[in-house]
């Protein structure tokens, strides 16, 4: 059984609240911004409220690269991706790493509720926590996978590539959904291929085999 070529799930990614990144996303300037202690505690409480609503989980697997040339990459199940930049990205790779994470629907729902109630302070903080934690989750998943692959002598790139960028059309999210069975994670796609719930992310990376020096 080739474990890496089937879906590997992490049911709850143990994130550490990325406070600095959240504050930066909210526009804090490290040198100029000043906030009094009372509002600062209110802000941190809202962050914690959001953090408590996260259900970060993810999936990854490896795909075989069937064929690659300057403008097109063909993967397992004859999945074709036409993009020069993407082809360059996988040029020297042995395998493609495919991953997806979601923070779950509880925080996006709470964000909607806060907006409906006119509590934009909380909504904005929830949004920033969700975005930064989704980024952190995809990175953490990649590090976990990298450690496991390295023990098997395979090197996973730190760089990531996402659908919607670099000429990889967003409709490829459909194939990503199929490959990782994301509906099973209560994720879905809109007509314009936006992932639901909000703050869900997918990514590609590349893997190279081991050779002793």
């Amino acid at each position, binding site marked *: 059984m080739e474990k890496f070529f089937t879906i590997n799930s992490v049911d709850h990614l*143990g994130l550490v609240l990325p406070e600095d990144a959240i504050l930066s996303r*909210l526009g*804090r300037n490290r040198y100029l911004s000043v906030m009094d202690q009372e509002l600062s505690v209110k*802000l941190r409480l809202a962050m*914690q409220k959001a953090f408590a609503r996260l259900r970060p989980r993810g999936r990854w697997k490896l795909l075989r690269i069937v064929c690659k040339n300057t403008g097109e990459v063909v993967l397992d199940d004859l999945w074709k991706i036409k993009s020069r930049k993407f082809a360059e990205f996988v040029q020297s790779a042995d395998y493609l790493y495919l991953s997806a994470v979601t923070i779950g629907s509880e925080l996006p729902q709470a964000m909607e509720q806060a907006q409906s109630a*006119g509590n934009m302070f909380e*909504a*904005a903080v929830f949004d920033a926590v969700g975005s930064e934690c989704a980024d952190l989750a995809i990175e953490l998943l990649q590090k976990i996978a990298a450690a496991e692959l390295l023990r098997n002598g395979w090197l996973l790139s730190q760089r990531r590539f996402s659908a919607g960028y670099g000429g990889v059309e967003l409709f490829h999210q459909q194939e990503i959904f199929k490959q990782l069975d994301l509906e099973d994670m209560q994720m879905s796609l809109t007509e314009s291929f936006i992932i639901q719930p909000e703050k869900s992310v997918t990514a590609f990376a590349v893997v190279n085999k081991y050779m002793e*020096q």
Partner: protein
Amino acid sequence: MISRSQFRKLCDEKVLILDGATGTELIKQGMPSGVSPELWVSEHPEAITAVQQAYADAGSNIVYTPTFGGNEVKLAEFGLEARAFELNKTLAEISIKAVRSRGVLVFGDLAPTGKFVEPSGDWSFEEAVKVYKNQAEALAAADVDGFVIETMMDLQEARAALIAVRELYPDAPVMVTLTFDESQRTLTGVTPDAALITLQSLGADAFGCNCSTGPDNMAKLICSIKEYAQIPLIAKPNAGLPMLKDGKTVFNMTPGMFADYVDTLLNSGVNLLGGCCGTTPAHIAAAAGKVRSSTLPLPERFDASGIISSNRRIQKLSYDRNFVVIGERINPTGKKALQAELRSNSTALALQFALEQQAAGAEVLDVNMGLSGVDETAMMRKVVLQTLRAVDTPLCIDSTSPEAVEAALRVYPGRALLNSISYEKERIEKVLPIAARYGAMLILLPLDENKLPENCAERIAVLEKLIPEISKYGYTLNDVAVDALIMAVSAAPQAGNAALEFIDYCHNHLKVNTVCGLSNISFGLPNRMLVNRTFLAMAMAKGLNMAIANPMNADFMAAIQAVEALNGKDKNMMNYLANQSNAAAEASKAPAATADFGVQAFNAVLRGDTASAVKAVETALQDKALDARKFLNENLLAAIDEVGKKFEQKEYFLPQLLAGAEALQAAIKVLEPALQNNSQAGEVKEKFIIATVKGDIHDIGKNITALMLRNSGFEVIDLGKDVPAGVIIERAKAENCRLIGLSALMTTTMGEMPKVIELAKQSSLQAEFIVGGAVVDAEFAAHIGAVYAADAMMCVRLARELQRKK
């Protein structure tokens, strides 16, 4: 199995050599990638035998069983969980057969499950303990010499594994290594010093790190924690960094290059040295050769008592160090709101108190959940786990219930302070063994089951009975703080002197930490804060170095800073100057107390303080002659303009902008009836249509902009998200609206924006377009015939400019 003392003796005699990488060596022996290594090795015992004999030949004193993925959770990924016992036992037997006859020890390998244990994740701590117990039993059944818990990225999972082994085999040697990245933290944010303090107090026999980095970084990491190490330190670095060479993964260190770091590692404090990813028997042989020829002395051990930790921070507590405030507020006694919350099973207020106290300077947080109608044990466990998701401040577990103490200490991912152990039967017989089992530091209360010790001599007498009891569990005086037992001077006039004399005795004679619940002294007196502060200064002069108190009291915190500046503990008065200069500057900047409700309302909106803004307006409205329109313009709207200016100057950022806007909205709602009474006829607001374009469902930025536009006097018609061009244009025509804002967050949806503008042209709609969103920029906006707003305030400014042009 060897004993803990035998293992310690081995470490005291020489630097022990561990093995190197196993996974990649097995691949060289023919193991295919992606299979279960445990199953494959059980079917190919000759492969691991060859690898481990090569490590034995290279000089390894200890090899690990090939059971890295042998726990039930990892085996379940291959459908092998039912064979966990059999596989672990078999693999350990193969290792023992391979190398024991060569004098090499075999340690049973326990490694991560891949699940995140609470509080980092949602996996039950007890489940984790159970999984590791099952694996440890199988390894012990094969008669391994000891255990190693390795490559852990979460301290709580490492604790679960260590507790599992300790509960089964109290005298088995257990080594623990975590994996720290270049930032010297694990992926779950654990710091090496916090991990060391936690695990050595819990009974680890050696601690260190493996994987993730090469020997240079690992030496730095080991060096940074050696001053806290009472136990031997381990380094198992990778063979440098993995890199691509001709499209293949290689590690950049040859055996010779790896061995060149041996002296650096030994100097940093390493007592057990091996290798991880990319290392081979040749790397281990080269390193072992260097170790054997080294003339460096064996690493020194240090006394690390008097240190507590959370999973992300340590806190030193010592009678001769700086004063430490233990925040007292997470305690329902006398706090009705907290009592009500806890009774409704909510911990939100406790969490708020944790954040507030940490922000105010508490270095430790006391947690007491004793309240009628609340399951103290369950609530204590819950609050401990949740608090440590929010703050990194170490906790002081405060309970008289042995069950609550055990529940808290068992899941606490650090070394806690326990409040308290007295010379009372239940405390000595039940609570003290629990504290010792989890390695907690103790607060000693000089109380017994007889009368309350009123004077110093009686307290010393109780303490002298208490010290031998804690010594039985290996505690020294460095690992305790003595409670000075403060009583109310209103009831016992000599209570203050008795406490001061006792503090003096503890500090100067026993040289031990002293702590007190300070506010008891003033019970029943007027101006309690004055009495508390004065007594604090007197007690600190006698040597008091900790207090359980409210850090939210700025005068109290300032008094501590002042005493430390005066007694020389605050070197060059740096802390005092930093805090009190800031306080003075803040005081001069703060608006003076004013009876002018307009100024109060202005300041409240500026601070984003909704309650104060509403109160100021309500009070102002008591004046029947108030000109509401003037009040609005000169105070409330002037304040939000000032907020906007501060936002554009980056002095404020988004939460402050929104807090100000919300305070303004709440204030206007109160003022609204008065505004309608004196509204001017013919007053018409400028309309502004706003929408997120078709295909896009992101609307937070659009909603924030709508809020700021409303606050700035526009009549905002918000069409929502995923809005087709036709709907926007039709509505603009129907409303005769000339200002339209469009938002898009994705490259794939920003293409809708020119479609809306084009449709406006086709429909002969004379409108100005403002566009915004993460992917939009000024160039794109100009290209499609719009103007670009980088944020909500810029949109307000542009809307005003366009309004004026019209």
